[in-house]
């Protein structure tokens, strides 16, 4: 058994109920008694043998038939040791309370609120336990519970919490918002000794605001022009993808993952199919691995170009936006040629990819890569030393390395603070272990460094693609697993056996073994992880998406405090936030 699990068992003989090591998938998991969770969490975070300093995710599962109905599942990552651990605690329906771990990991704040919102588990000691994705006055229950119907409930007018269209609107003009409602947006009042009366201003921004990159609302508490508290109000784009997935076969979920981070949808496909493959223990043909790596890096280029263009536009530099979109267009055309769509690509299949790279496509991609470094330099002439850009990004939205880890930040946001954490290096997948590339690391953890990290990543991505194109092996693009992967169309039309497999896979789907697994992928925004619990049926029992944008929004208040109101747009942009992924 893993030494860490032994240590935990001897150290906490009562609190640790069971330990398990899944050798095949490389997962460690620990079951602890819910009331003593905090002790174990403290140990895992503080002790140098464990050093789980990075919080990955918190999610929950519902087992209505069990005596202890709910399970809260924590994922932690130890950056010094490079291992992950899953901690689980069970609670009953009558007393669904778990101690909050916000005192250990600050990033747990938003994650616990999400669990409370969607599953109805309370966290004792949480500073601000409110609904986060659903509306605050939503009284229909907690959607991820198994007794909440996955089917729609009919027409809009049948939801009684929504205003009905056939009724006269309720006159609600000029109402003063009661103080009690404003309280959540305010900081704790400081006792002041002076007789000067101060009053903070509450300013509402969004949800329909051009600079919030989607429908996001923030309430800013302002002291003059300084932000004293920034409360993000999420959930305007909540579609319940996780609930939806519980009613779909594994294969049918892929097009739904396209709609998470719609700027680079293939990365979501990639993260999802990798998790399912890990669950199944499926190996992928070489050529498919290379193609996956190539398209994932193309998506990273698109994602970063999109970020650069919009961030510069938000700050006031118009030209960069046109130039980055010009290059993005070239890549989108390639995707269109490859799989027939430009944005919602649905290109990955479980066990491989949908269509093959043609020589023509390889040529066009090479031609793009030849010009691309010159284009990156072109963007840099406009921005790198430009005094407006520097003044508006340097020392804005600074976060220290410890804080960034404690909040669970990932991706370029974390690396700009000087932490060399990249899933592609830590747990190499695809062809990343076979090509030569570097992880750019920033120093100051401000927006300028994040810009620099992303620019370097553009260069590294094109390096990776160029090497993959050179090494691209011949061979099949889907794995040979007739029980899981539908046979080729030509076989289906010819022989009965393939036809039967085809029918069974499309009508019933395949059945992965019972089990659960978490798998992380480096998306352009950060670590995109999927956690799937399978009960042996053709549909996932529970699917949790660890969306980097959502986790990053948890650090928003921390990073926005003390800056001027004109910086708020930069602070949004610095995360490269996409609300489709944040709200899911």
């Amino acid at each position, binding site marked *: 058994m893993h030494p860490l699990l032994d240590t935990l068992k001897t150290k906490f003989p009562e609190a640790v109920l069971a330990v398990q090591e899944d050798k095949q998938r490389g997962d460690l998991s620990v079951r602890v008694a819910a009331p003593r969770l905090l002790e174990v969490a403290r140990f895992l975070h503080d002790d140098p043998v464990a050093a789980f300093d990075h919080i990955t995710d918190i999610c929950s599962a519902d087992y209505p038939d069990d005596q202890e109905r709910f399970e809260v599942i924590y994922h932690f990552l130890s950056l010094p040791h490079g291992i992950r651990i899953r901690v689980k605690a069970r609670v009953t329906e009558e007393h669904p309370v778990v101690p909050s771990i916000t005192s250990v990991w600050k990033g747990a704040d938003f994650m616990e609120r999400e669990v409370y919102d969607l599953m109805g588990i309370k966290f004792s000691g949480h500073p601000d336990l409110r609904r986060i994705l659903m509306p605050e006055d939503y009284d229909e229950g907690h959607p991820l519970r198994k007794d909440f119907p996955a089917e729609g409930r009919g027409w809009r007018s049948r939801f009684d919490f929504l205003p009905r269209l056939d009724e006269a609107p309720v006159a609600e003009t000029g109402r003063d918002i009661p103080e009690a409602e404003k309280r959540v947006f305010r900081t704790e009042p400081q006792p002041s000794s002076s007789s000067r009366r101060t009053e903070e201003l509450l300013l509402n921004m969004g949800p329909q605001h051009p600079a919030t990159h989607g429908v996001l609302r923030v309430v800013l508490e302002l002291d003059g022009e300084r932000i004293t508290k920034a409360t993000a109000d999420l959930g305007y784009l909540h579609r319940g993808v996780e609930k939806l997935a519980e009613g*779909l076969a594994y294969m049918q979920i892929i*097009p739904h993952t396209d709609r998470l981070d719609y700027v680079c949808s293939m990365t979501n496909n990639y993260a999802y199919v990798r998790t399912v493959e890990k669950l199944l223990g499926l190996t992928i043909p070489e050529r498919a691995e290379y193609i996956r790596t190539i398209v994932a890096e193309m998506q990273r280029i698109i994602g970063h170009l999109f970020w650069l263009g919009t961030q510069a536009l938000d700050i006031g530099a118009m030209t960069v936006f046109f130039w980055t979109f010009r290059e993005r267009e070239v890549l989108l055309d390639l995707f*269109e*040629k490859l799989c027939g769509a430009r944005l919602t690509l649905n290109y990955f299949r479980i066990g491989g990819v949908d269509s093959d790279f043609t020589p023509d496509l390889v040529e066009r991609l090479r031609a793009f890569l030849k010009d691309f470094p010159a284009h990156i330099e072109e963007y840099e002439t*406009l921005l790198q030393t430009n*005094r407006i850009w520097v003044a508006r990004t340097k020392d804005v939205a600074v976060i220290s390395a410890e804080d960034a880890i404690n909040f669970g930040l990932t991706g370029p946001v974390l690396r700009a603070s000087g932490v060399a954490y990249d899933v592609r290096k830590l747990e190499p997948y695809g062809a990343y272990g076979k090509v030569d590339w570097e992880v750019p690391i920033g120093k100051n953890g401000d927006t300028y460094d994040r810009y620099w990290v992303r620019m370097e990543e553009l260069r590294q991505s094109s390096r990776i693609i160029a090497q993959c194109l050179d090494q691209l092996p011949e061979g099949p693009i889907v794995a040979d697993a007739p029980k899981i992967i539908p046979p080729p169309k030509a076989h289906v*039309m010819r022989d009965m056996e393939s036809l039967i497999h085809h029918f069974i896979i499309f009508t019933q789907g395949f059945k992965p073994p019972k089990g659960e697994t978490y798998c992380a992928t480096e998306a352009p925004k950060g670590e995109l992880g999927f956690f799937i619990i399978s009960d042996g049926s053709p549909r996932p029992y529970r699917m949790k998406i660890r969306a980097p944008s959502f986790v990053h929004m948890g650090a928003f208040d921390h990073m926005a405090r003390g800056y001027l109101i004109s910086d708020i747009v930069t602070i949004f942009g610095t995360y490269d936030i996409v609300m489709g992924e944040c709200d899911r």
Partner: protein
Amino acid sequence: MTKFTAWIKTIIFYEILVGMKATLSHLLHYKPITLQYPHEKRTLPDSYRGMLALLRYDDGTEKCVGCDLCEAACPSRVIKVFSAEVPGEPTKRYAKEYYMDMTRCLFCGLCVDACPVDALGMTREFEWAVYDKRQLRLNKEQLLAIGDRSYPVREKRLEFQHPNVAFFNVAFKGLPEKES
């Protein structure tokens, strides 16, 4: 000296001038990449995943055998098939009614992958904006009409099958050898 050049660069707005030079050089080598849609249209690739259509064989019969696989494969329940026996031919089935609610479609192509007789196709049509979204619930005739105008070359129907088996298209050209 470096301090002095830095100071000079600051007061003459050097980096702004360099940026302006980059921008203005594009004015000289002016190459528009924007298309004046709808007056100009892009050429879409063959694999484009646009509007769905039902296809026919070259003799005008519908390919669809009413097997319901597309309905089962669709992740957002777009398709509704009512299958029935072909009148007078009890071994063959067809889709008596076939509906697609295109307001829900994700254009993922899973239904096309699922169809065992290639009766569904994705066309290059995308200009399907309508005023009333109920118009997007298409029936079999409308879907066949889309197929007729988008796929002028139809697949050949071969009738050398045993009359007692369900009708599948075995006329697929260039079958790959199946590995044993």
